[in-house]
């Protein structure tokens, strides 16, 4: 265990534990966009930055990744921290003008004006990578990835074609913090990332629930007969 201070308050943490976790446990508010408890950190959004004074050496760091160390002083709301956060939010608001979450956070952090020409082509995607990590680490199919670099970087299935491995589970839709990923269901067909999935109808209540593709995949990986999975959760 190590002793450190956050905004002057003495706190205890496990050595190496991410500062974000420590600070939140102690009740400090640090905003995040690309961090998720189940998927951990990737340090992309830089909204969680804090200032650290380590034996006189001051620097702004991503709290989701910076390891707790003995005697460091952490400041969650210094001028430097505020400038980085406000900049990130203004830049994201210019990139994703229609994203309600970004609008909300920007307002909360006092970003009232966007000094750049807003993008029209990025939708609500902030490139937090949560969908990619979720598809790989939780679902286990790796149907999504990032391609391109710089301003051309984007997320999606390889070559923007309907993915061969996507099972249509929609986990990416759920985890996306801004609601960028569209998923539609109509007449027993689910469409996500341009791929169409036939939905299974529950033999008991006749309601459409999950894509057949997903049921087959669960059946195969968990060794459960498809017939069992065809019955919807409510009727099971």
């Amino acid at each position, binding site marked *: 265990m190590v002793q450190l201070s956050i905004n002057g308050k003495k706190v205890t943490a496990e050595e190496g534990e991410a500062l974000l976790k420590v600070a939140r446990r102690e009740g400090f508010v640090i905003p995040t966009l690309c961090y998720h408890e189940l998927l951990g950190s990737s*340090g*992309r*959004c*830089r*909204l969680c*930055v804090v200032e650290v004074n380590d034996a006189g050496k001051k*620097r*702004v*760091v*991503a709290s989701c*990744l*910076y*390891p707790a160390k003995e005697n460091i002083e952490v400041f969650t709301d210094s001028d*430097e921290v505020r*400038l*980085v956060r406000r*900049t*990130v939010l203004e*830049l*994201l608001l*210019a*990139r994703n003008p229609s994203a309600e979450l970004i609008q909300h956070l920007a307002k909360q952090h006092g970003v009232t004006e966007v*000094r*750049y*020409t807003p993008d029209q082509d990025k939708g609500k995607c*902030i*490139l937090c990578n949560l969908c990619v990590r979720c598809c790989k680490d939780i679902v286990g199919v790796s149907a999504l990835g*990032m391609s*391109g*670099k*710089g*301003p*051309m*970087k984007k997320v999606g299935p390889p070559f923007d074609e309907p993915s061969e491995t996507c099972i249509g589970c929609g986990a990416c839709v759920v985890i996306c913090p801004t609601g960028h990923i569209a998923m539609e269901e109509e007449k027993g067909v689910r469409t996500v990332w341009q791929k169409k999935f036939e939905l299974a109808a529950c033999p008991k209540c006749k309601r459409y629930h999950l894509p057949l593709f997903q049921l087959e995949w669960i059946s195969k990986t968990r060794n459960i007969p498809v017939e069992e999975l065809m019955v919807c959760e409510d009727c099971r």
Partner: protein
Amino acid sequence: MALSLKQLDSITSAFNAKEQAYDKIIRVCCGTGCITSGANRVLEGVLTAVEREGLSSKVLVKKTGCHGLCERGPIVTLGNDEILYQSVGKRDVAADVDLLLKTVTEGKVADKLLFRDSARKEKYTSSLDIPFYKGQKRIVLAMNGLINPEEIDDYIAHGGYRAPFRAFQMTPEEIIDWVTKGGLRGRGGGGFLTGRKWSSARAAKGGLKYVLANGDEGDPGAFMDRSLMEGNPHAVIEGMVIGGYTIGAQQGYIYVRDEYPLAVSRLTKAIEQARDYNMLGHDVFGSGFDFDLEIYRGGGAFVCGESTALMSSLEGKSGEPRDKYVHTVEHGLWDKPTNLNNVETWANVPHIINNGLDWYTSIGTKKSTGTKIFSLVGKVNNTGLIEVPMGISLREIIFGLGGGIRGKRQFKAVQTGGPSGGCIPEQHLDMPVDFDSLTSIGSMMGSGGMIVMDERNCMVDVARYFLRFLTEESCGKCVPCREGTRRMHEILDRICKGAGKIEDLMHLEELGKALQWGAICGLGQSAPNPVLSTIRYFSDEYKAHIIEGRCPAGVCKEITTFTIMEEKCTGCMRCAAECPMGAIIGEKKEPQRIDDLRCITCGICYDVCSFDAIKIG
């Protein structure tokens, strides 16, 4: 079978005896620069002519690595630096080859092939007298231009591969002590003390460790690492063997960008030859130490020169950096302790081991020891690759070695440190070139790019150029860099087009700070440097664009006009002949006029006018 020191000496004697059997040696530079100027045709021409004239037993023709004077390529030297011929075969290969042979057979020096200093109008026979070479201290590049990089015996005959023998007799701690006390600092840009890095890597826990060489040079206008890998690949290998032994790594990788095919092929050959001599592989030099090397070809992203992005790319993932709160010397490639050094840093190591601490620290300054290779490009008379002692002044480099500014123009700035470096104005020209001095004035050493600019370079446009480069080369992982660089570019573009506002300057500085503090890696953190340093030293130029709506250098097309001053124009029609649009109207010997409707403001008329009759408006 492992080679002994004695065997290295006998290889040396055999090689020297073979070379001494010839009366003359002709060395043809076959670095990338000279090859693009036709060096391969020259080499072939010389070889054929030597055979035709029955001189094969008397004249040895060798191909070498880069001599540095790339602009005047193809370069051919005779004897040991006795005669340097430049631009050989640029117009007529056969004729120049004849001249070469005449020099060899009749001792007749070909006047037309000699180097002529455009600044001093002097001709030089030996390269040793040419100011471009005279001001240099070639240690790392000493063998470039001398040896055939594809022949390991040539390297051995020039003292190569002796350092590991000395190193194996030292303890790793002693070597670290030497490298640390020698003050060797990372040549890739960071300037971190190499010995300290090695020490951390050695101390790091974990059985498997790696040493890496960074050959992913991507700065526009920089070719130091390329020339070294092409011209003297064994020096890098030799350094890495010592580094591997010191930190306890058995495997190394050389990360080379795939746009450097010649470097890849020469390094590949060098590794194979080193393996044949058991300088790589099992029980290196019979020391009981196993070490091998592999080449990894980079996919062409500038960011992969950043240590963590390089490692990610080497692992087969996309080249994205990560925060280095945990250092790569502890958790690097495949999460193992990893020591990464630039190829130039590696090539310095054998020299320290061979020549000792006192010798090394006597070169350079107290805190920046040794030499540094720079690629000197831009508006100087002599462009090319130079190796100079640290602490030399920028003025000596630009006006001494570089021969000053081209034409009648005035020096304006020198950009050091690659795209993330800064622009240094005249007032700092006497500043010593070392890691700390350059950083103190808002630039950096970087990997050694040096771009000289004159009054016809617009500093706002220069900042815009670099920000465009960085926008495209940002990996896009973190928000400040991905979105921040493109927005900085957006603002600069607006200023260049005459639509800037005075508050844009403060906005740029604010964005700059956010990137310095908030971005993940060195690319994003240093991306504001070209903007901040030009605002710092050339704010007048920014203000001229914003307030007066004009570009003093006449570069930004949207706000530039060219007019001919009647009283100065002699009607020589030079500009009319050069104008690509036929926009210059007038009778011969009468003052000319520019048709604004046709003019594309390219500025060629301004550049060619001998009477200063054209005004930038």
